[in-house]
C-alpha cells in the first residue's frame, strides 16, 4: 500500500524539519512543561520512565554482581535487601505499570481512533505531574537511605519492624497510582466518545482493545492499592493495629488487599504488550489478525478474571485448603485467554508475507518468552508444586519471563515500530536487529538458570547462599551483563537517530493503522481532516487501498 499512498501526501518530499509538526510547532521548556498535546505528554512520560528503567536496572546489575559469590561479593545484607526492594518498586510501579499505556498509549490512542487529542488533555498533563511527584518521593526514599521491605511491603515487617524509609516509598507509590487512574479514565472516555466516523468497536485496532481493558483495571484496581498503602502508613505511624495480631489485627489481611491489586497489575503490565503484539505481527506479515474477536474478547476476559485469582500468591500462608482449590482453578482459567492469543498470533503468520524488521524480531521474541512465562505459571497455579516452588527463584524466573521477556520486549518492539512516527526518523536497522538478538540471548541466560535454582530450593531475596547454588548464579549474572548491554544499545542508536537518522516518511512499514495516514511526525492536530473509516482493522489484503 505504501507505494500508492505516498504520492497523496504532500508532506513527503519536504524534509520533516520544514513542515510544521507537533515537535517544532513551538519551542522552549515551557512549551513542553505546559503542553496539553497528548503526543508531547507521551514524550514527557517516555523520558521519565526511561530514566526510571535505567535506575531500576542499575540496582539489578548491582544485585547480580553481588550474587557472583555465595557469601556476597559486593554489599552488606542490609544493602542487598534495599537493592532488591528499590529494583522491584521502581520497575513495577514506575516503569512497567506506566510503560506502554503512558507512552505509546498516550501517543497512539487518539491517533489510532482518528481523534485530535484525548478527551481530557489537561487531566492528561496532570497525570504526568502526579507521576513525577510520586517518583520524586520514591527517589527521595532511595537517597534518604533506601527501603528494605521488598516491593510487596508485607506486614508486620513493613509496618512495625523495618527501620527504613517505608513511608516516603509507600507515599510515592500511593501518589503515582492516581496518575494511572487518570490515564485510565481518559482512555475509556476517549475510546467511547471520540472514535472517527465509521470506526465501530469491531473495527478498532487490537491495541485499542488492550488499552481499554488495561484502563478498566487501572480504574478498578488502583484505588485498592491506594487504600492498602494508606492503611500501611496509618499502621506504621499511629499503630492502629489493623495488621498487628497483638491487638487483634491480621498481617495476612494485608496480603489479601495487596494482591487484590497486584495480581491484576500483572495484567496492567502485560495486556498493553499483547496489544502491541497484534499490531506488529499483522504489519510484518501483511495479514489480517487471525481471530479478531477472540483476541479482543480475551483481553476483556483477562481483565475480569484477573481480579479473582489473588489468593494464588498465598497458598502457603496457612490459607484453607478449600480457598486454595478455588484460587487454583481460577488461576488456570485466566491462563486460557492468554493461550488463545498466542495461538492466534502464530496463526496470523500462516501464508503471510513475513519480513524480519527489528520490531518483528522483538515481537517473535515476545511470543517465545511469553509462552514460557505463561506455561511456568502452571507450576505455580498447581497447588502441590507451588508448595515447593513458592518463595524461590522459580517465582523470580517466572515473573521475569512475563514482565521482562513479555512486557519489556513488547514495549521495545512498540518503540521501534512507532519510532519513525514519533520522531519522523529511522534508526539503523542492523543495530536494532543486533540489539534484539543480544537482549534475547542475555535474557534467557539470566533467567533460565533461575528456574533451576528455584526447583533446587534456593529461596529468593537471599543476600548469601549455600555454595552448591553458585554455578547457576554465576550463569545468571553473566546473562545479566549481556542483557544490560543489550538495553544500552537501543538507547544510543535511538538518541542518535533523532538527529542523524534518515527521514522516515509517513508510513515506512506499509502499515494499515490510521496513525500511518498522517505525516511523520504528525501535526499537532494529528490529522488535517478527520478520517472516515470504511474498512476493518488490518485490512492488508485490500491491495493499495487505504482505510480512509
Amino acid at each position, binding site marked *: 500500500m505504501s507505494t500508492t499512498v505516498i504520492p497523496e501526501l504532500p508532506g513527503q518530499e519536504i524534509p520533516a524539519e520544514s513542515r510544521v509538526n507537533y515537535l517544532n510547532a513551538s519551542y522552549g521548556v515551557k512549551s513542553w512543561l505546559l503542553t496539553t498535546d497528548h503526543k508531547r505528554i507521551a514524550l514527557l512520560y517516555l523520558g521519565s520512565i526511561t530514566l526510571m528503567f535505567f535506575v531500576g536496572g542499575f540496582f539489578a546489575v548491582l544485585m547480580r554482581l553481588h550474587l557472583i559469590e555465595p557469601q556476597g561479593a559486593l554489599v552488606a*545484607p*542490609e544493602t542487598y*535487601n534495599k537493592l532488591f526492594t528499590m529494583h522491584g518498586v521502581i520497575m513495577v510501579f514506575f516503569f512497567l505499570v506506566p510503560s506502554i499505556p503512558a507512552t505509546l498509549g498516550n501517543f497512539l490512542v487518539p491517533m489510532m481512533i482518528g481523534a485530535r487529542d484525548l478527551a481530557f488533555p489537561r487531566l492528561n498533563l496532570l497525570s504526568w505531574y502526579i507521576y513525577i511527584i510520586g517518583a520524586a518521593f520514591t527517589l527521595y526514599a532511595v537517597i534518604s537511605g533506601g527501603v*528494605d521491605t521488598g516491593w510487596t511491603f*508485607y506486614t*508486620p*515487617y513493613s509496618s512495625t*519492624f523495618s527501620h527504613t524509609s517505608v513511608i516516603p516509598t509507600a507515599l510515592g507509590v500511593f501518589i503515582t497510582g492516581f496518575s494511572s487512574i487518570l490515564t485510565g479514565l481518559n482512555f475509556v472516555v476517549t475510546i467511547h466518545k471520540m472514535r472517527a466516523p465509521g470506526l465501530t468497536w469491531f473495527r478498532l485496532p487490537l491495541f485499542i482493545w488492550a488499552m481499554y481493558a488495561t484502563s478498566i483495571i487501572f480504574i478498578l484496581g488502583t484505588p485498592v492499592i491506594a487504600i492498602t498503602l494508606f492503611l500501611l502508613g496509618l499502621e506504621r505511624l499511629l499503630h492502629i493495629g489493623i495488621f498487628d*495480631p*497483638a491487638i*487483634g489485627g491480621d*498481617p*495476612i489481611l494485608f496480603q489479601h488487599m495487596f494482591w487484590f491489586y497486584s495480581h491484576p497489575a500483572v495484567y496492567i503490565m502485560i495486556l498493553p504488550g499483547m496489544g502491541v503484539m497484534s499490531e506488529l505481527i499483522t504489519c510484518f*506479515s*501483511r495479514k*489480517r489478525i487471525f*481471530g479478531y474477536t*477472540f483476541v479482543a474478547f480475551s483481553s476483556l476476559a483477562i481483565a475480569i478474571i484477573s481480579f479473582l485469582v489473588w489468593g494464588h500468591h498465598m497458598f*502457603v*500462608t*496457612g490459607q484453607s*485448603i478449600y480457598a486454595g482449590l478455588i484460587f*487454583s*482453578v481460577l488461576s*488456570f482459567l485466566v491462563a*486460557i485467554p492468554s493461550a*488463545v492469543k*498466542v495461538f*492466534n498470533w*502464530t*496463526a496470523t*503468520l*500462516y*501464508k503471510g508475507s513475513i519480513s524480519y524488521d527489528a520490531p518483528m524480531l522483538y515481537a517473535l521474541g515476545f*511470543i*517465545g518468552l511469553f*509462552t*514460557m512465562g505463561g*506455561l*511456568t505459571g*502452571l*507450576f505455580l497455579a*498447581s*497447588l*502441590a*508444586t507451588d*508448595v515447593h516452588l513458592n*518463595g*524461590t527463584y522459580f517465582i523470580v524466573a517466572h515473573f521475569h519471563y512475563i514482565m521482562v521477556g513479555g512486557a519489556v520486549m513488547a514495549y521495545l518492539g512498540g518503540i521501534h515500530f512507532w519510532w519513525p512516527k514519533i520522531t519522523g526518523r529511522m534508526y539503523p536497522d542492523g543495530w536494532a536487529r543486533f540489539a534484539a538478538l543480544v537482549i534475547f540471548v542475555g535474557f534467557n541466560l539470566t533467567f533460565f538458570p533461575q528456574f*533451576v535454582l528455584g*526447583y*533446587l*530450593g534456593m529461596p529468593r*531475596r*537471599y*543476600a548469601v547462599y*549455600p555454595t552448591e547454588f553458585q*554455578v*547457576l548464579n554465576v550463569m545468571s549474572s553473566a546473562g545479566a551483563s549481556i542483557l544490560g548491554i543489550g538495553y544500552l544499545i537501543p538507547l544510543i542508536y535511538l538518541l542518535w537517530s533523532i538527529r542523524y537518522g534518515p527521514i522516515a516518511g509517513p508510513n515506512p512499514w506499509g502499515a494499515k493503522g490510521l496513525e500511518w495516514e498522517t505525516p511523520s511526525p504528525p501535526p499537532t492536530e494529528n490529522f488535517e481532516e478527520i478520517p472516515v473509516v470504511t474498512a476493518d482493522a488490518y485490512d*492488508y489484503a485490500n491491495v493499495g487501498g487505504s482505510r480512509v
Partner: protein
Amino acid sequence: MLTGLMQSGFTNMAAAVAAIPIHPTSASTISDSVDHLYYFLTAITLFFTFGIFTTIFYFMVRFRRRSPDEQPADTKTHMALELTWTIVPTLITVVIFVWASSLYFENSRPPEAATEVFVVGKQWMWHIQHPEGPREINELHVPVNAPIKITMTSDDVIHDFYIPAFRVKKDAVPGRYTSIWFQATKIGTYHIFCAQYCGADHAEMIGWVYVMSPTDYAAWLSGGARSESMAQTGERLFTQFGCITCHVADNTGRGPSLVGLYGKPEKLRNGDMKLVDEALIRQAIVTPNSIILPNYPPIMPTFQGQINEEQVLQLIAYVKSLGTEERKTNGK
C-alpha cells in the same frame, strides 16, 4: 599443543556443565510424587514452547517476504480451529488441576500417629522444641520413616519454614498456628531455609534437618542434659505466672478448671461454639477478652508481652496433658 589445550578446555567445560545441579535431593514420602507432577508440567511446557517456536520458525522461512510488494491473500477466521485451541488447553489444565489438587490434599493431611514438633520463628533463628523436652536452634533432629507434624508460629514477622528435600513449606505467621508434616525416607542432613523475606538476616535464617535411624534418634533424645518435657516446663510456668491461683483442678478457683478442656467443643458467652484446639488456648492466654465463658466473670488478665511464643506452646502442652476426662465447670 593448542589442540590439546582446547581439548582439555572442552572436557573441563563439559565437566562443569555436567556438575550443574538440576535436581534437588528427594528425601520424603511426598517428594517423588511432587516431582512427577513437576516433570509432567515440564513436559507440557517444553512441548508447547517447542511447538510454538518451531511453527514460528517454519512460517518465518516458508512465508518470508520474497518481493517488497508481495500481497498475501486474506484468511478468514476459522471457528473450528479457535474452539480447538480454546478447549484443548482447557482440558489439559483440568487434568493438571485435578492431579495437583488431589496430591496437595493428601500432602496436607498429617497422619494421626504423627509425632509433634513445635517451631517458633524469631528474627533470624528457628527455635525448635520437642514434646519430650529437647530444644534446638536452627537444627531439627527427626527419626527416619516416622511421620512428623510441625506446628509453627512466629514471635515477630512472617517467616517461612522450608525443607526443599521434603518439598514442604509453610509460613510461620505471628498470631496463628500453621502446620506441615513429612515423613523422611533417607537418613541424612538437609537444608532448612526461611522462604519468606523477614529482614536483614533473612538469608542467614537457615538450618539443618538431621534424619537419623530410630536407634540414633532414641540415643539423641535421651542424651545430653536430660531436660524436662514441654508439659513439665508448662506446669512450672503455670505456677510461675499464677495461672494456678484461678485455674484449680477441682474447679474451686475463680476461673474454670482446665482439666479435660482440650479437644472438645465449647460454648462461649456470645453463643459461638468453638473447638478447643491449640489456637483457641493460645487466644485465651494472649487475648482473654476474646474468649469469654458463660458463668465466669471476665477477669483473666492478658499475658501478652509477658509470655513469649515458646512459653505459650509449653503452657498449651501442659493444658493438653491435663487429660480428656469430663470437665468440671460452673453451671451448664
